[in-house]
Protein backbone atom coordinates (compact mmCIF):
# COMPACT_ATOMS: atom_id res chain seq x y z
CA UNK A 1 0.00 0.00 0.00
CA UNK A 2 1.37 3.35 -0.97
CA UNK A 3 1.45 6.04 1.68
CA UNK A 4 -0.06 9.24 0.39
CA UNK A 5 0.65 12.80 1.38
CA UNK A 6 -2.62 12.77 3.28
CA UNK A 7 -1.60 9.66 5.25
CA UNK A 8 1.65 11.37 6.16
CA UNK A 9 -0.16 14.51 7.33
CA UNK A 10 -2.62 12.41 9.29
CA UNK A 11 0.11 10.48 11.08
CA UNK A 12 2.14 13.64 11.69
CA UNK A 13 -0.85 15.52 13.13
CA UNK A 14 -1.96 12.50 15.16
CA UNK A 15 1.57 12.09 16.51
CA UNK A 16 1.74 15.75 17.48
CA UNK A 17 -1.63 15.39 19.16
CA UNK A 18 -0.47 12.32 21.07
CA UNK A 19 2.65 14.17 22.25
CA UNK A 20 0.46 17.09 23.33
CA UNK A 21 -1.93 14.83 25.24
CA UNK A 22 1.00 13.15 27.02
CA UNK A 23 2.45 16.57 27.83
CA UNK A 24 -0.83 17.57 29.47
CA UNK A 25 -1.43 14.29 31.29
CA UNK A 26 2.12 13.99 32.68
CA UNK A 27 1.94 17.00 35.06
CA UNK A 28 -1.68 16.22 35.97
CA UNK A 29 -0.77 12.67 37.01
CA UNK A 30 2.39 13.89 38.72
CA UNK A 31 0.39 16.20 41.02
CA UNK A 32 -1.08 13.03 42.50
CA UNK A 33 2.40 11.58 43.22
CA UNK A 34 3.64 11.41 46.85
CA UNK A 35 4.52 14.87 48.09
CA UNK A 36 8.03 16.04 48.85
CA UNK A 37 7.25 15.86 52.58
CA UNK A 38 6.20 12.22 52.43
CA UNK A 39 9.21 11.19 50.35
CA UNK A 40 11.64 12.73 52.84
CA UNK A 41 9.95 10.52 55.42
CA UNK A 42 11.05 7.50 53.39
CA UNK A 43 14.64 7.98 54.61
CA UNK A 44 15.56 7.98 58.31
CA UNK A 45 19.01 8.51 59.82
CA UNK A 46 19.73 7.34 63.37
CA UNK A 47 22.97 7.98 65.31
CA UNK A 48 23.51 4.60 67.00
CA UNK A 49 26.00 5.91 69.57
CA UNK A 50 23.01 7.64 71.22
CA UNK A 51 21.31 4.29 71.84
CA UNK A 52 22.46 2.35 74.92
CA UNK A 53 23.27 -1.34 74.61
CA UNK A 54 20.06 -3.42 74.80
CA UNK A 55 18.20 -0.19 74.15
CA UNK A 56 15.69 0.69 71.46
CA UNK A 57 15.02 3.94 69.66
CA UNK A 58 11.48 4.21 68.31
CA UNK A 59 11.03 6.51 65.32
CA UNK A 60 8.92 6.34 62.19
CA UNK A 61 9.58 5.30 58.61
CA UNK A 62 6.99 5.74 55.84
CA UNK A 63 4.41 6.40 58.53
CA UNK A 64 5.07 3.17 60.41
CA UNK A 65 6.82 2.76 63.79
CA UNK A 66 10.47 1.86 63.35
CA UNK A 67 12.50 0.08 66.07
CA UNK A 68 16.24 0.70 66.00
CA UNK A 69 17.82 -1.87 68.36
CA UNK A 70 21.38 -2.07 69.64
CA UNK A 71 22.47 -5.46 70.97
CA UNK A 72 25.57 -6.76 72.75
CA UNK A 73 27.93 -8.68 70.42
CA UNK A 74 27.60 -11.96 72.30
CA UNK A 75 23.81 -12.25 71.93
CA UNK A 76 22.90 -14.88 69.33
CA UNK A 77 19.69 -16.56 68.27
CA UNK A 78 20.84 -19.92 69.68
CA UNK A 79 19.31 -18.86 73.01
CA UNK A 80 15.81 -18.84 71.55
CA UNK A 81 13.47 -21.59 70.50
CA UNK A 82 12.88 -20.08 67.04
CA UNK A 83 10.20 -21.36 64.64
CA UNK A 84 12.58 -22.19 61.77
CA UNK A 85 9.81 -22.61 59.15
CA UNK A 86 8.45 -19.07 59.69
CA UNK A 87 10.51 -17.02 57.23
CA UNK A 88 10.48 -13.55 55.66
CA UNK A 89 9.90 -12.64 51.98
CA UNK A 90 13.52 -13.51 51.13
CA UNK A 91 12.83 -17.05 52.39
CA UNK A 92 15.24 -16.63 55.32
CA UNK A 93 15.12 -15.91 59.02
CA UNK A 94 15.65 -12.24 59.82
CA UNK A 95 18.63 -13.36 61.92
CA UNK A 96 20.42 -14.58 58.79
CA UNK A 97 20.22 -11.06 57.37
CA UNK A 98 20.97 -9.13 60.54
CA UNK A 99 23.49 -11.23 62.49
CA UNK A 100 26.79 -9.48 63.13
CA UNK A 101 25.16 -6.01 63.02
CA UNK A 102 25.41 -4.27 66.36
CA UNK A 103 22.45 -2.01 65.41
CA UNK A 104 19.68 -2.53 62.92
CA UNK A 105 16.08 -1.46 62.28
CA UNK A 106 12.82 -3.41 62.23
CA UNK A 107 9.31 -2.27 61.28
CA UNK A 108 7.64 -2.27 64.69
CA UNK A 109 4.30 -3.68 63.58
CA UNK A 110 3.20 -7.14 64.66
CA UNK A 111 2.62 -9.30 61.57
CA UNK A 112 -0.49 -10.80 63.15
CA UNK A 113 -2.94 -7.90 63.36
CA UNK A 114 -0.84 -4.74 63.32
CA UNK A 115 -0.26 -3.91 66.99
CA UNK A 116 3.03 -2.47 68.16
CA UNK A 117 5.18 -4.99 70.11
CA UNK A 118 6.85 -4.09 73.41
CA UNK A 119 10.59 -4.44 73.99
CA UNK A 120 11.47 -6.66 76.97
CA UNK A 121 15.23 -6.29 77.44
CA UNK A 122 15.27 -8.27 80.74
CA UNK A 123 13.50 -11.29 79.32
CA UNK A 124 10.89 -13.14 81.38
CA UNK A 125 10.26 -16.50 83.03
CA UNK A 126 9.32 -18.10 79.73
CA UNK A 127 11.98 -16.45 77.55
CA UNK A 128 15.24 -16.09 79.44
CA UNK A 129 16.69 -13.44 77.06
CA UNK A 130 15.66 -10.04 75.57
CA UNK A 131 12.63 -10.37 73.28
CA UNK A 132 9.72 -8.49 71.70
CA UNK A 133 6.25 -9.13 73.00
CA UNK A 134 3.05 -8.12 71.25
CA UNK A 135 0.47 -7.20 73.89
CA UNK A 136 -2.57 -7.83 71.70
CA UNK A 137 -2.50 -11.59 71.21
CA UNK A 138 0.81 -12.60 72.79
CA UNK A 139 3.05 -12.83 69.75
CA UNK A 140 6.68 -13.42 70.75
CA UNK A 141 9.67 -12.36 68.64
CA UNK A 142 13.41 -12.58 69.03
CA UNK A 143 15.22 -9.20 69.04
CA UNK A 144 15.72 -9.77 65.28
CA UNK A 145 11.99 -10.18 64.78
CA UNK A 146 11.93 -13.95 64.21
CA UNK A 147 8.91 -15.79 65.62
CA UNK A 148 9.21 -17.66 68.89
CA UNK A 149 5.58 -18.20 69.68
CA UNK A 150 2.03 -16.90 69.47
CA UNK A 151 -0.15 -16.34 66.40
CA UNK A 152 2.09 -14.14 64.11
CA UNK A 153 2.48 -15.87 60.71
CA UNK A 154 5.87 -14.44 59.75
CA UNK A 155 8.82 -12.50 61.19
CA UNK A 156 8.69 -8.71 61.58
CA UNK A 157 9.38 -6.75 58.40
CA UNK A 158 12.95 -5.52 57.92
CA UNK A 159 13.36 -2.26 55.96
CA UNK A 160 16.26 -1.61 53.56
CA UNK A 161 19.12 -0.15 55.59
CA UNK A 162 22.82 0.55 55.54
CA UNK A 163 25.58 1.63 57.91
CA UNK A 164 27.52 4.84 57.36
CA UNK A 165 30.00 5.33 60.22
CA UNK A 166 27.98 5.81 63.38
CA UNK A 167 24.79 6.29 61.43
CA UNK A 168 22.22 3.72 60.51
CA UNK A 169 20.41 4.88 57.35
CA UNK A 170 17.00 3.31 56.89
CA UNK A 171 15.39 3.51 53.45
CA UNK A 172 18.55 3.01 51.40
CA UNK A 173 19.87 -0.41 50.34
CA UNK A 174 22.89 -1.70 52.28
CA UNK A 175 23.19 -4.86 54.34
CA UNK A 176 19.45 -5.20 53.78
CA UNK A 177 18.65 -4.50 50.13
CA UNK A 178 14.86 -4.18 50.22
CA UNK A 179 11.89 -4.55 52.52
CA UNK A 180 11.63 -8.24 53.46
Amino acid at each position, binding site marked *: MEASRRDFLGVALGGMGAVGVLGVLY*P*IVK*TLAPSAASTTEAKVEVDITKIPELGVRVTSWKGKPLFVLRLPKDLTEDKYNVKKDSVNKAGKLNYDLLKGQEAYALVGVCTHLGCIPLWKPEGSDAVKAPYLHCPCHGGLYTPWGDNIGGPPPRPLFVPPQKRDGNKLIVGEPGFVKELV
Partner: protein
Amino acid sequence: MIKRIVDWIDERTHVRDLYREQMVEYKVPKNLTFPYVFGVLALITFAIQIISGIILIMYYKPVIAHAFDSANYTIMREISFGWLFRHIHAAGANFFLAIVYLHMFTGIYYNAYKKPRELVWIVGWVIYFVLLVTALTGYLLPWGQLSYWGTVVTTEIPASLADAPILKGLFGAIGETISIWMKGGYKLEDLALGRFFGLHVLLLPLILLALVSIHLFLVRAAGISNPEGYEIDKKNEPEKVAPFHPYMTLKEGAFAMWYLAIFFFFVFFYMHHFLPADNFEPADPLKTPPHIAPEWYLLGFYEVFRSIPSKFWGFVAFNLILVLLLLLPFLDFSPVKSARRRPLFFIMFLVFLFSSMALTVLGTMAPTPTNAKLGMFFTALVFLFFLSLPVISFLEWGWYKARGGRA
Protein backbone atom coordinates in the same frame (compact mmCIF):
# COMPACT_ATOMS: atom_id res chain seq x y z
CA MET B 1 -11.68 -3.50 16.49
CA ILE B 2 -12.23 0.20 17.15
CA LYS B 3 -14.52 0.34 14.14
CA ARG B 4 -16.62 -2.50 15.56
CA ILE B 5 -16.92 -0.77 18.93
CA VAL B 6 -18.00 2.47 17.21
CA ASP B 7 -20.44 0.47 15.04
CA TRP B 8 -21.93 -1.07 18.17
CA ILE B 9 -22.35 2.33 19.80
CA ASP B 10 -23.61 3.92 16.56
CA GLU B 11 -26.32 1.29 16.11
CA ARG B 12 -27.76 2.32 19.45
CA THR B 13 -27.10 6.06 19.55
CA HIS B 14 -26.66 7.19 15.91
CA VAL B 15 -23.61 9.24 16.90
CA ARG B 16 -22.34 9.21 13.32
CA ASP B 17 -25.50 10.98 12.15
CA LEU B 18 -25.10 13.46 14.98
CA TYR B 19 -21.48 14.10 14.01
CA ARG B 20 -22.38 14.54 10.35
CA GLU B 21 -25.27 16.89 11.09
CA GLN B 22 -23.41 18.99 13.63
CA MET B 23 -19.95 19.10 12.10
CA VAL B 24 -20.06 18.46 8.33
CA GLU B 25 -23.56 19.47 7.31
CA TYR B 26 -23.40 22.47 9.61
CA LYS B 27 -22.38 25.25 7.24
CA VAL B 28 -20.75 28.54 8.19
CA PRO B 29 -20.06 31.61 6.03
CA LYS B 30 -16.91 31.26 3.95
CA ASN B 31 -15.77 34.79 4.63
CA LEU B 32 -15.39 34.63 8.43
CA THR B 33 -12.43 36.77 9.46
CA PHE B 34 -9.73 36.17 12.05
CA PRO B 35 -11.60 37.83 14.98
CA TYR B 36 -14.30 35.14 14.74
CA VAL B 37 -11.80 32.78 16.39
CA PHE B 38 -12.06 34.46 19.80
CA GLY B 39 -15.18 32.51 20.74
CA VAL B 40 -13.37 29.21 20.34
CA LEU B 41 -10.34 30.56 22.19
CA ALA B 42 -12.59 31.60 25.09
CA LEU B 43 -14.03 28.08 25.16
CA ILE B 44 -10.51 26.60 25.27
CA THR B 45 -9.55 28.94 28.11
CA PHE B 46 -12.69 27.96 30.02
CA ALA B 47 -11.66 24.29 29.74
CA ILE B 48 -8.13 25.15 30.90
CA GLN B 49 -9.55 27.01 33.93
CA ILE B 50 -11.79 24.10 34.91
CA ILE B 51 -9.01 21.49 34.65
CA SER B 52 -6.39 23.56 36.49
CA GLY B 53 -9.00 24.64 39.05
CA ILE B 54 -9.93 21.03 39.86
CA ILE B 55 -6.28 20.30 40.61
CA LEU B 56 -5.85 23.41 42.78
CA ILE B 57 -9.01 22.75 44.80
CA MET B 58 -7.57 19.43 46.00
CA TYR B 59 -4.84 21.25 47.94
CA TYR B 60 -6.27 24.71 48.69
CA LYS B 61 -7.70 25.28 52.18
CA PRO B 62 -10.42 27.97 52.51
CA VAL B 63 -9.60 28.91 56.11
CA ILE B 64 -7.67 32.11 56.77
CA ALA B 65 -5.19 30.33 59.05
CA HIS B 66 -4.16 28.01 56.21
CA ALA B 67 -5.21 29.69 52.95
CA PHE B 68 -1.96 31.57 52.30
CA ASP B 69 0.27 28.60 53.14
CA SER B 70 -1.81 26.13 51.18
CA ALA B 71 -1.54 28.35 48.09
CA ASN B 72 2.09 29.35 48.49
CA TYR B 73 3.63 26.36 50.22
CA THR B 74 1.54 23.24 49.61
CA ILE B 75 0.65 24.08 46.01
CA MET B 76 3.76 26.00 44.99
CA ARG B 77 6.39 23.77 46.65
CA GLU B 78 5.07 20.52 47.99
CA ILE B 79 2.88 19.14 45.22
CA SER B 80 4.72 18.05 42.07
CA PHE B 81 3.80 20.50 39.30
CA GLY B 82 1.45 22.34 41.69
CA TRP B 83 3.18 25.59 40.70
CA LEU B 84 2.40 24.87 37.04
CA PHE B 85 -1.33 24.57 37.66
CA ARG B 86 -1.41 27.70 39.80
CA HIS B 87 0.45 29.59 37.08
CA ILE B 88 -1.93 28.24 34.45
CA HIS B 89 -4.97 29.18 36.53
CA ALA B 90 -3.74 32.70 37.30
CA ALA B 91 -2.62 33.42 33.73
CA GLY B 92 -5.78 31.70 32.46
CA ALA B 93 -8.01 34.11 34.37
CA ASN B 94 -6.31 37.08 32.69
CA PHE B 95 -6.31 35.47 29.26
CA PHE B 96 -9.96 34.48 29.67
CA LEU B 97 -11.03 38.08 30.27
CA ALA B 98 -8.73 39.40 27.54
CA ILE B 99 -10.24 36.97 25.02
CA VAL B 100 -13.76 37.77 26.21
CA TYR B 101 -13.09 41.50 25.71
CA LEU B 102 -11.77 40.84 22.20
CA HIS B 103 -14.81 38.64 21.53
CA MET B 104 -17.14 41.43 22.70
CA PHE B 105 -15.43 44.11 20.60
CA THR B 106 -15.65 41.73 17.61
CA GLY B 107 -19.35 41.28 18.26
CA ILE B 108 -19.85 45.03 18.46
CA TYR B 109 -17.81 45.70 15.32
CA TYR B 110 -19.74 43.19 13.19
CA ASN B 111 -23.06 44.05 14.92
CA ALA B 112 -23.44 40.39 15.87
CA TYR B 113 -25.95 41.44 18.54
CA LYS B 114 -28.68 42.36 16.04
CA LYS B 115 -31.75 40.44 15.00
CA PRO B 116 -31.87 37.41 15.10
CA ARG B 117 -28.94 37.31 17.59
CA GLU B 118 -30.13 39.58 20.42
CA LEU B 119 -30.30 36.65 22.85
CA VAL B 120 -26.78 35.54 21.93
CA TRP B 121 -25.56 38.99 22.99
CA ILE B 122 -27.67 39.11 26.16
CA VAL B 123 -26.56 35.67 27.35
CA GLY B 124 -23.00 36.62 26.42
CA TRP B 125 -23.31 39.75 28.57
CA VAL B 126 -24.45 37.64 31.53
CA ILE B 127 -21.44 35.34 30.95
CA TYR B 128 -19.18 38.40 31.04
CA PHE B 129 -20.76 39.64 34.25
CA VAL B 130 -20.55 36.25 35.99
CA LEU B 131 -16.97 35.95 34.77
CA LEU B 132 -16.10 39.26 36.46
CA VAL B 133 -17.62 38.01 39.73
CA THR B 134 -15.72 34.73 39.36
CA ALA B 135 -12.47 36.66 38.85
CA LEU B 136 -13.16 38.86 41.90
CA THR B 137 -14.01 35.94 44.19
CA GLY B 138 -11.00 33.93 42.99
CA TYR B 139 -8.72 36.91 43.57
CA LEU B 140 -9.29 36.72 47.35
CA LEU B 141 -8.45 33.04 47.72
CA PRO B 142 -4.58 33.18 47.91
CA TRP B 143 -5.09 35.49 50.93
CA GLY B 144 -2.13 37.73 50.09
CA GLN B 145 -1.96 41.48 50.72
CA LEU B 146 -3.37 42.35 47.27
CA SER B 147 -6.10 39.71 47.56
CA TYR B 148 -7.19 41.07 50.90
CA TRP B 149 -7.04 44.80 50.20
CA GLY B 150 -8.44 44.43 46.68
CA THR B 151 -11.47 42.72 48.19
CA VAL B 152 -11.75 45.29 50.99
CA VAL B 153 -11.98 48.04 48.35
CA THR B 154 -14.43 46.04 46.21
CA THR B 155 -16.76 45.39 49.14
CA GLU B 156 -16.61 49.10 50.04
CA ILE B 157 -17.79 50.21 46.59
CA PRO B 158 -21.54 49.65 47.20
CA ALA B 159 -21.19 51.91 50.25
CA SER B 160 -20.75 54.84 47.80
CA LEU B 161 -24.54 54.78 47.46
CA ALA B 162 -24.55 56.74 50.75
CA ASP B 163 -23.43 59.81 48.76
CA ALA B 164 -26.75 59.96 46.92
CA PRO B 165 -28.14 63.49 46.43
CA ILE B 166 -31.61 62.38 47.56
CA LEU B 167 -32.87 59.69 49.94
CA LYS B 168 -29.44 59.52 51.57
CA GLY B 169 -30.69 57.30 54.39
CA LEU B 170 -32.28 54.71 52.11
CA PHE B 171 -29.41 54.53 49.63
CA GLY B 172 -26.89 54.40 52.48
CA ALA B 173 -28.74 51.51 54.12
CA ILE B 174 -28.91 49.62 50.80
CA GLY B 175 -25.19 50.15 50.16
CA GLU B 176 -24.15 49.09 53.64
CA THR B 177 -26.39 46.02 53.52
CA ILE B 178 -24.84 44.90 50.21
CA SER B 179 -21.37 45.52 51.59
CA ILE B 180 -22.01 43.55 54.79
CA TRP B 181 -23.75 40.71 52.99
CA MET B 182 -20.79 40.34 50.64
CA LYS B 183 -18.49 39.89 53.63
CA GLY B 184 -20.79 38.12 56.06
CA GLY B 185 -19.97 40.74 58.72
CA TYR B 186 -18.11 43.96 59.23
CA LYS B 187 -14.70 42.42 58.73
CA LEU B 188 -13.21 40.35 55.97
CA GLU B 189 -12.66 37.05 57.73
CA ASP B 190 -13.27 33.32 57.49
CA LEU B 191 -16.95 33.74 56.63
CA ALA B 192 -16.11 35.93 53.64
CA LEU B 193 -13.31 33.62 52.50
CA GLY B 194 -15.63 30.61 52.83
CA ARG B 195 -18.42 32.11 50.76
CA PHE B 196 -16.07 33.53 48.16
CA PHE B 197 -14.52 30.07 47.90
CA GLY B 198 -17.89 28.35 47.56
CA LEU B 199 -19.01 30.77 44.88
CA HIS B 200 -15.71 30.61 43.01
CA VAL B 201 -15.32 26.84 42.87
CA LEU B 202 -18.88 25.60 42.67
CA LEU B 203 -21.79 27.93 42.00
CA LEU B 204 -20.24 30.37 39.52
CA PRO B 205 -18.50 27.70 37.37
CA LEU B 206 -21.79 25.75 37.17
CA ILE B 207 -23.64 28.90 36.13
CA LEU B 208 -20.92 29.67 33.57
CA LEU B 209 -21.10 26.14 32.19
CA ALA B 210 -24.86 26.40 31.76
CA LEU B 211 -24.66 29.89 30.23
CA VAL B 212 -21.90 28.91 27.82
CA SER B 213 -23.99 25.93 26.66
CA ILE B 214 -26.98 28.20 26.10
CA HIS B 215 -24.75 30.74 24.33
CA LEU B 216 -23.45 28.04 21.95
CA PHE B 217 -26.94 26.68 21.35
CA LEU B 218 -28.19 30.18 20.51
CA VAL B 219 -25.28 30.72 18.10
CA ARG B 220 -26.22 27.49 16.31
CA ALA B 221 -29.90 28.40 16.33
CA ALA B 222 -29.41 31.88 14.86
CA GLY B 223 -26.39 31.05 12.69
CA ILE B 224 -23.02 32.77 12.80
CA SER B 225 -23.07 36.40 11.71
CA ASN B 226 -21.22 37.53 8.63
CA PRO B 227 -18.46 40.14 8.34
CA GLU B 228 -20.29 41.69 5.36
CA GLY B 229 -23.46 42.02 7.41
CA TYR B 230 -25.73 40.08 5.05
CA GLU B 231 -27.81 37.16 6.22
CA ILE B 232 -26.84 34.18 4.08
CA ASP B 233 -29.60 31.91 2.78
CA LYS B 234 -27.82 28.59 3.25
CA LYS B 235 -30.17 26.70 0.88
CA ASN B 236 -30.07 29.09 -2.05
CA GLU B 237 -26.53 30.40 -1.74
CA PRO B 238 -24.43 27.25 -1.21
CA GLU B 239 -21.41 28.98 -2.78
CA LYS B 240 -21.22 31.36 0.21
CA VAL B 241 -20.91 28.72 2.93
CA ALA B 242 -18.44 25.98 3.83
CA PRO B 243 -18.78 22.88 6.05
CA PHE B 244 -17.77 23.54 9.66
CA HIS B 245 -15.59 20.43 9.55
CA PRO B 246 -12.92 20.31 8.20
CA TYR B 247 -12.67 23.95 7.06
CA MET B 248 -13.47 25.82 10.27
CA THR B 249 -12.09 23.20 12.66
CA LEU B 250 -8.69 23.21 10.93
CA LYS B 251 -8.52 26.99 10.66
CA GLU B 252 -9.56 27.51 14.25
CA GLY B 253 -7.37 24.62 15.37
CA ALA B 254 -4.34 26.33 13.84
CA PHE B 255 -5.18 29.61 15.60
CA ALA B 256 -5.77 27.70 18.84
CA MET B 257 -2.23 26.30 18.60
CA TRP B 258 -0.81 29.81 18.26
CA TYR B 259 -2.92 30.94 21.17
CA LEU B 260 -1.74 28.09 23.39
CA ALA B 261 1.88 28.82 22.42
CA ILE B 262 1.51 32.43 23.56
CA PHE B 263 -0.40 31.37 26.67
CA PHE B 264 2.25 28.90 27.80
CA PHE B 265 5.03 31.32 26.96
CA PHE B 266 3.56 33.57 29.67
CA VAL B 267 2.92 30.65 32.04
CA PHE B 268 6.55 29.55 31.90
CA PHE B 269 8.48 32.81 31.46
CA TYR B 270 6.42 35.89 32.38
CA MET B 271 4.30 34.97 35.37
CA HIS B 272 5.23 38.05 37.39
CA HIS B 273 2.62 39.89 35.32
CA PHE B 274 -0.09 37.67 36.76
CA LEU B 275 1.27 36.83 40.21
CA PRO B 276 2.61 40.17 41.50
CA ALA B 277 5.24 40.10 44.26
CA ASP B 278 2.99 42.02 46.71
CA ASN B 279 0.61 39.10 46.84
CA PHE B 280 3.30 36.77 48.21
CA GLU B 281 2.97 38.57 51.54
CA PRO B 282 0.22 37.23 53.83
CA ALA B 283 -2.86 39.43 54.28
CA ASP B 284 -2.43 41.96 57.08
CA PRO B 285 -5.68 43.74 58.08
CA LEU B 286 -3.65 46.49 59.80
CA LYS B 287 -1.37 47.45 56.89
CA THR B 288 -2.49 48.56 53.42
CA PRO B 289 0.05 48.00 50.65
CA PRO B 290 1.33 51.31 49.13
CA HIS B 291 -0.19 50.79 45.68
CA ILE B 292 -3.57 49.19 45.37
CA ALA B 293 -5.49 49.05 42.09
CA PRO B 294 -7.85 46.50 40.57
CA GLU B 295 -6.74 44.03 37.94
CA TRP B 296 -6.39 45.42 34.42
CA TYR B 297 -9.75 44.07 33.25
CA LEU B 298 -11.57 46.32 35.75
CA LEU B 299 -9.39 49.41 35.32
CA GLY B 300 -11.73 51.02 32.79
CA PHE B 301 -14.68 50.87 35.19
CA TYR B 302 -12.40 51.86 38.09
CA GLU B 303 -11.24 54.98 36.21
CA VAL B 304 -14.85 55.98 35.46
CA PHE B 305 -15.65 55.50 39.15
CA ARG B 306 -12.77 57.51 40.55
CA SER B 307 -12.50 60.36 38.02
CA ILE B 308 -16.08 61.48 38.66
CA PRO B 309 -15.93 63.74 41.75
CA SER B 310 -19.09 62.33 43.38
CA LYS B 311 -18.79 58.72 44.58
CA PHE B 312 -22.51 58.21 44.03
CA TRP B 313 -22.47 59.39 40.41
CA GLY B 314 -19.25 57.45 39.78
CA PHE B 315 -21.00 54.34 41.02
CA VAL B 316 -24.04 55.08 38.87
CA ALA B 317 -21.88 55.82 35.82
CA PHE B 318 -19.92 52.59 35.74
CA ASN B 319 -23.02 50.51 36.42
CA LEU B 320 -24.84 52.43 33.68
CA ILE B 321 -22.10 51.50 31.20
CA LEU B 322 -22.67 47.85 32.07
CA VAL B 323 -26.43 48.23 31.61
CA LEU B 324 -26.01 50.11 28.30
CA LEU B 325 -23.80 47.27 27.06
CA LEU B 326 -26.61 44.86 27.88
CA LEU B 327 -29.12 47.03 26.00
CA LEU B 328 -26.91 47.37 22.92
CA PRO B 329 -29.23 45.35 20.60
CA PHE B 330 -32.07 47.78 21.39
CA LEU B 331 -30.06 51.01 21.27
CA ASP B 332 -28.79 50.10 17.83
CA PHE B 333 -31.97 49.31 15.88
CA SER B 334 -30.62 50.10 12.41
CA PRO B 335 -31.46 47.49 9.74
CA VAL B 336 -27.89 47.68 8.40
CA LYS B 337 -25.32 45.35 9.95
CA SER B 338 -21.53 45.32 10.28
CA ALA B 339 -19.23 48.33 10.69
CA ARG B 340 -17.91 47.55 7.19
CA ARG B 341 -21.08 49.02 5.71
CA ARG B 342 -21.80 51.69 8.36
CA PRO B 343 -19.27 54.54 8.21
CA LEU B 344 -20.93 56.53 11.03
CA PHE B 345 -21.08 53.50 13.27
CA PHE B 346 -17.47 52.66 12.41
CA ILE B 347 -16.32 56.10 13.61
CA MET B 348 -18.26 55.75 16.87
CA PHE B 349 -16.92 52.20 17.31
CA LEU B 350 -13.38 53.60 17.10
CA VAL B 351 -14.30 56.30 19.64
CA PHE B 352 -15.61 53.60 21.99
CA LEU B 353 -12.60 51.33 21.46
CA PHE B 354 -10.01 54.05 22.07
CA SER B 355 -11.91 55.54 25.02
CA SER B 356 -12.05 52.12 26.71
CA MET B 357 -8.33 51.69 26.14
CA ALA B 358 -7.57 55.21 27.35
CA LEU B 359 -9.65 54.69 30.52
CA THR B 360 -7.79 51.44 31.20
CA VAL B 361 -4.40 53.13 30.78
CA LEU B 362 -5.49 56.08 32.96
CA GLY B 363 -6.55 53.57 35.60
CA THR B 364 -2.91 52.53 36.02
CA MET B 365 -1.79 56.12 36.62
CA ALA B 366 -1.81 58.26 39.74
CA PRO B 367 -5.13 60.11 40.27
CA THR B 368 -3.87 63.65 39.52
CA PRO B 369 -6.41 66.41 38.65
CA THR B 370 -5.34 66.30 34.98
CA ASN B 371 -5.86 62.54 34.84
CA ALA B 372 -9.25 62.91 36.49
CA LYS B 373 -10.24 65.44 33.79
CA LEU B 374 -9.03 63.08 31.07
CA GLY B 375 -10.94 60.28 32.78
CA MET B 376 -14.15 62.31 32.68
CA PHE B 377 -13.53 63.23 29.03
CA PHE B 378 -13.19 59.59 27.97
CA THR B 379 -16.13 58.58 30.16
CA ALA B 380 -18.18 61.15 28.26
CA LEU B 381 -16.97 59.67 24.96
CA VAL B 382 -18.06 56.17 26.05
CA PHE B 383 -21.54 57.52 26.82
CA LEU B 384 -21.47 59.40 23.52
CA PHE B 385 -20.96 56.07 21.73
CA PHE B 386 -24.04 54.56 23.34
CA LEU B 387 -26.15 57.70 22.81
CA SER B 388 -25.09 58.00 19.16
CA LEU B 389 -26.44 54.54 18.33
CA PRO B 390 -30.16 55.47 18.24
CA VAL B 391 -29.33 58.59 16.20
CA ILE B 392 -27.26 56.63 13.66
CA SER B 393 -29.98 53.97 13.52
CA PHE B 394 -32.60 56.62 12.84
CA LEU B 395 -30.56 58.06 9.96
CA GLU B 396 -29.85 54.63 8.52
CA TRP B 397 -33.53 53.71 8.59
CA GLY B 398 -34.15 56.76 6.41
CA TRP B 399 -31.48 55.76 3.86
CA TYR B 400 -32.66 52.18 3.96
CA LYS B 401 -36.19 53.22 3.04
CA ALA B 402 -34.98 55.67 0.40
CA ARG B 403 -33.17 52.76 -1.29
CA GLY B 404 -36.39 50.79 -1.36
CA GLY B 405 -35.69 48.59 1.65
CA ARG B 406 -32.33 47.31 0.49
CA ALA B 407 -29.23 47.52 2.64
